[in-house]
Structure formats: structure tokens, C-alpha cells
């Protein structure tokens, strides 16, 4: 899993934990927790915090190729980088906006479909039957497969003349007369969505499977006696019982998918089509291809702010809902 797209499932105690669950203070020996936190703190500082602060600073200076070698002397640019990034009347701002919208659509599709597929698979495997373990294992393979191996295989399958996808659609099923392109033009969006779902749904499946195990069987039996249909059971028991899993997982998947860099990077290479121009990849190109790290950093900061806002809003909503339900 790419670090660029990893995230932590926020547990309910992201806010100060309720008193009952609060760890008990160990009185005088308060130095001990600090001592054992030191390695984690140092690493976080070195790898995450200091580079982030540097990146934040970079977004306020004119860090083009003319200053990159003496980057500490780069002239202060104020909000100029941000202005360039959001000015939609210029190609740069327009490009960022388009990329943002593509990414929003991509994220909505990938998260919702992965959720649905993962749920369907978990429910289908809820009962014990012969061969259940085989399916369970098989469904986890895409998740375990190294990311580049998976995406490069898809890239091969999506080739126009030599790929398996067109072979099926055109030669075997005859649905289409002419072989479509999957990696350029508008279809590229479909491709990147399908590939991302292929990689993502097993995660949803895994989480749901774990969640389903903790639902007491009696609940189903009781409702079966009441004559509830399987659909009603799912609506009234399964879904509410999976609430906790759901709220965590949706946020995790949202952040992973929104930040996805690897899928477009491996799938499209240097020839990224506009329809598959996801935002992480877009910012990477904006920074490295044009040597404009100031504007690239400004774009990243904007992305970060957006993700923070969405995450906080989401946590706020789910916690309020949890309180209401309680």
C-alpha cells in the first residue's frame, strides 16, 4: 500500500476519550511514557513533520528552476503560487480544477462501488458452505498483490490491439465492431476506476467480513421467525450492526482513493490522458515536469486543506450521529 495514500482509521477516541475508558495515570513515574514515545516522535518529526513544514514554506516562495539550486534563497512569493493554482482563467488553474473534479468523481465511484462489492461478497460468504474458505482467500489476493504487479497487468490487458479486454469485447463477444481505446481519451477514466476498484474492494470485503463475525446469530434467527425477508434482514440487522465498521472504513477509503498516486502513475506512464488526470499525479507533474515546486507545493497544501476539511466534517457528523443513536 502506498504511503502517499495510507491513512489511519480514526477511532472513536480521536477526541479526548470518555472518562470511563481513560487510561489510569501511573502517578509519579510520568517520565516513562515520554521515554518510550521518543523513537516514534523522532521519526515522525524527521519524516513527516519537518518535511511538511518545509513543503508549507515552499508554497510561499518562488521555487522555480532558477532558484532550485539555492532553494533557501528563493524569493518570497506571498500568495502568488496560490493565486496561480486557483486562477481558473489560466491553463494552470483550469488544469488543477479539472483534475480536482476528475478526482472527486473518481473517488465517489471507486469508494461507493468498492463498498457495494465488498458488502455483497461479505454477505454472500456469511453462511458456512463448502468452498467458502476458497472464495475468501481468492478475494483477498488483489489486496495482497504488490501494487505495480497488479496495475501493470491491467495496463497490458487494456492495450488496444494486444489486450484481453478488447479481445473479449470485439473478437469473442462481438459487442463492438471497432476496438476502443482504454488508456487514452475518455475511456481512460473508466479504466482507472475499474483498476482502482479491483485493488480496493477486497479491503472493504475484509473489513465487512470482520464486522459480520461479531453480529450475534440470534438476531437473524429472531427476525426470521418474524418472517423478515433476507433483504429486510440486511436492512434492519446487518447494516446497523456494521455501523462502526462503516464509518471508519468510508473515511479511510476516501483518503486512500483521493490521494491515489500509484494507480494512474503505473497505468498511464508519461502519457497521462486528461480523463485520468488524478490530482496527486497532476501535482507531481506540475512540480517535477515544469520544475515549479512552489506552485506544486501550493497545490498540495490546498489538497491537504480540502482533505482535512472533509475529514473533520465527516468525523463531526458521524460522532453526532453516534451520540444521537446512543
Amino acid at each position, binding site marked *: 500500500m502506498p504511503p502517499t495514500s495510507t491513512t489511519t482509521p*480514526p477511532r472513536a477516541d480521536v477526541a479526548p476519550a470518555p472518562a470511563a475508558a481513560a487510561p489510569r495515570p501511573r502517578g509519579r513515574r510520568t517520565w516513562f511514557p515520554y521515554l518510550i514515545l521518543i523513537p516514534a516522535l523522532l521519526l515522525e518529526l524527521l519524516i513527516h513533520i519537518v518535511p511538511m513544514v518545509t513543503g508549507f514554506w515552499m508554497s510561499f516562495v518562488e521555487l522555480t528552476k532558477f532558484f532550485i539550486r539555492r532553494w533557501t534563497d528563493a524569493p518570497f512569493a506571498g500568495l502568488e503560487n496560490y493565486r496561480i493554482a486557483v486562477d481558473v482563467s489560466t491553463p494552470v488553474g483550469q488544469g488543477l480544477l479539472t483534475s480536482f473534479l476528475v478526482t472527486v468523481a473518481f473517488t465517489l465511484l471507486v469508494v461507493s462501488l468498492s463498498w457495494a462489492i465488498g458488502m455483497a461478497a461479505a454477505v454472500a460468504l456469511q453462511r458456512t458452505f463448502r468452498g467458502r474458505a476458497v472464495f475468501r482467500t481468492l478475494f483477498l489476493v488483489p489486496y495482497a498483490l504488490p501494487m505495480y504487479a497488479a496495475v501493470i497487468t491491467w495496463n497490458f490487458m487494456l492495450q488496444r490491439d494486444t489486450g484481453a479486454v478488447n479481445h473479449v469485447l470485439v473478437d469473442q463477444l462481438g459487442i463492438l465492431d471497432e476496438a476502443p481505446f482504454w488508456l487514452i481519451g475518455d475511456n481512460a477514466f473508466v479504466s482507472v476506476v475499474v483498476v482502482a476498484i479491483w485493488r480496493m474492494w477486497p479491503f472493504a470485503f475484509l473489513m465487512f467480513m470482520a464486522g459480520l463475525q461479531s453480529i450475534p446469530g440470534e438476531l437473524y434467527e429472531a427476525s426470521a421467525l418474524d418472517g423478515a425477508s433476507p433483504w429486510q434482514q440486511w436492512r434492519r440487522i446487518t447494516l446497523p450492526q456494521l455501523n462502526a465498521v462503516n464509518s471508519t472504513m468510508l473515511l479511510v477509503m476516501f483518503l486512500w482513493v483521493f490521494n491515489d498516486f500509484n494507480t494512474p502513475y503505473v497505468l498511464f506512464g508519461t502519457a497521462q490522458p486528461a480523463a485520468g488526470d488524478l490530482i496527486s499525479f497532476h501535482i507531481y507533474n506540475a512540480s517535477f515536469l515544469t520544475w515549479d515546486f512552489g506552485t506544486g507545493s501550493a497545490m498540495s497544501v490546498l489538497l491537504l486543506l480540502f482533505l482535512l476539511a472533509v475529514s473533520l466534517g465527516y468525523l463531526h457528523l458521524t460522532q453526532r450521529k453516534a451520540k444521537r443513536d446512543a
Partner: protein
Amino acid sequence: MRETTGEKIFRVVVLSVLSVFVLVPLYVMATTALKPLGDVQSSFSWIPSRVTLAPFVQMWETVPLARYFLNSLIVTCAATLFSVLVAILAAYAVSRWRFRGRGPFMTTVLSTQMFPGVLFLLPLYLIFVNIDTTFGITLVGTRLGLIITYLTFSLPFSVWMLAGYFDGIPRELDDAGKVDGASNMGILLRIILPAARPGIVAVAIYAFMTAWGEVLFASVMTTEDSRTLAVGLRQYATQTNVYWNQILAASLVVSVPVVAGFLLLQKNFVAGLTAGAVK
């Protein structure tokens, strides 16, 4: 409880469709790896007309795959090991003490996972270079640099997951240990760790997967000597040709151990995940 016909149809349809969805790429990977390059470059066929093991032989020569494999193995294993160790310590602190700064620590750790990698790629590189010029520790282009980077990437999630797991271990056990005169470290080693084994395995798997597939940082921070598989595999597309059959053969070879390991340990992973998320 009897299964209705509707349920059965649902089950059969879902499982068959998903099996095909999952299996097709795996099948294409495996069969393409067995085809000669000429066949791979002409139109696709499901069943190889000629089968050859040559790609599995040539792939070691086209690209120094063995070296990349070794690099990946060293970097990933070391990053996993240290990530788990550091995470255990931090999670222990967070789970068992209510110290000043605990809340901010956890919030910060959480938010680091939202950082877009592109934003701190260049700064991190510059910091590594400065560490080299100041302290003489070479982090750029070495496996050490990658290990430190990757272990931190998996740290936040690991700390959260483990803290959740440790929380679930009754505190009465700690107290019993204390009565027996165990130190804080003693309690961690003798009481908490054995009880948290599934959680630790889950964290280890997660850390391993994070490091094993990383592409962006590896492409900038490695040299020929320290290059990992994730970037190394790209080299099958050279100036002369795109060796599709070798790419997929190599992908297959590097996937098998990881997938096998993951599937063997999946039960732990499920258990560990749920401890952090479900409750």
C-alpha cells in the same frame, strides 16, 4: 435457518462474477509470462499457442532482478521490524498512560496520514542530504534511508491499531504483574505482548505491504545499488523493446511470496483490524 432461493441465486451470482473479476488479471499474468515475446505482441489469445519458460530465465538478465529482490527484502523486512517495535512502544504509552500531550500526539499522528506524498518528497530528500553533509550519515540512495522512510510511513496506522488492541487487554492483568514486582517494561514484555499477538501480526503485515509496493519515494531515493523491485520492474521497458512477457513473469515471481505470506496470516490480519476499527 434455511437459505431461500433468492439468497442462493444472489450468492451464486455474486461469487461467480467476483471470481471472474479477480481471476482474469491473475490468469492473464500467469499465461502471458509463459508466451514468447512475438506472441505477446500480436493479438491476444487466452490459451498460449506456444509455451516457453524463457521469460522466467531472461528476466534475471534483462534487469538485475535478483539484486532488486534482495534490496526489497532487506528494506521491507527491516522497515517492518522497526516499525512494529517503535509502534509497540508508542502504543503502550498511549494505551496505559494519560500523559500531557497525549491527545495532540495522537491527532498529529493521525493527520500525517493525510499528507500528500508529493508535498514532502522533495523536502525529505533535502533533509536527508543535509543530514549527510552535517553528520556524515548517508541516507540518500541507501537502503538505510528507505528503511527509515518506510517505517515511518506505516507508523501512524500501526500506533493506532496497536493502541486499540492494547486498550482491549484488561488492566487487571497489568496490576497483577505489578504486584509480582514487574517493571513497566516487564509488564509490556510478559503480559501485553503475548496477549496482543494477533494485533502485532496484523501491524507487521500492514507495514510490510506498505514498504513492499512503494514507488514514488523509491524512484527518487534509490540508486542502482539500492533500487527496489517496485521501481526496478519498470526497466523491462527499455530503449529497445517492451518485454511484456518478462514484466509479467517478474511480477508473478515477486508476487507469489507476498501473496502466500499474506494469505497464511490473513486470520491474524482480520482479527487485528477489527480490534482497532470495530469496537
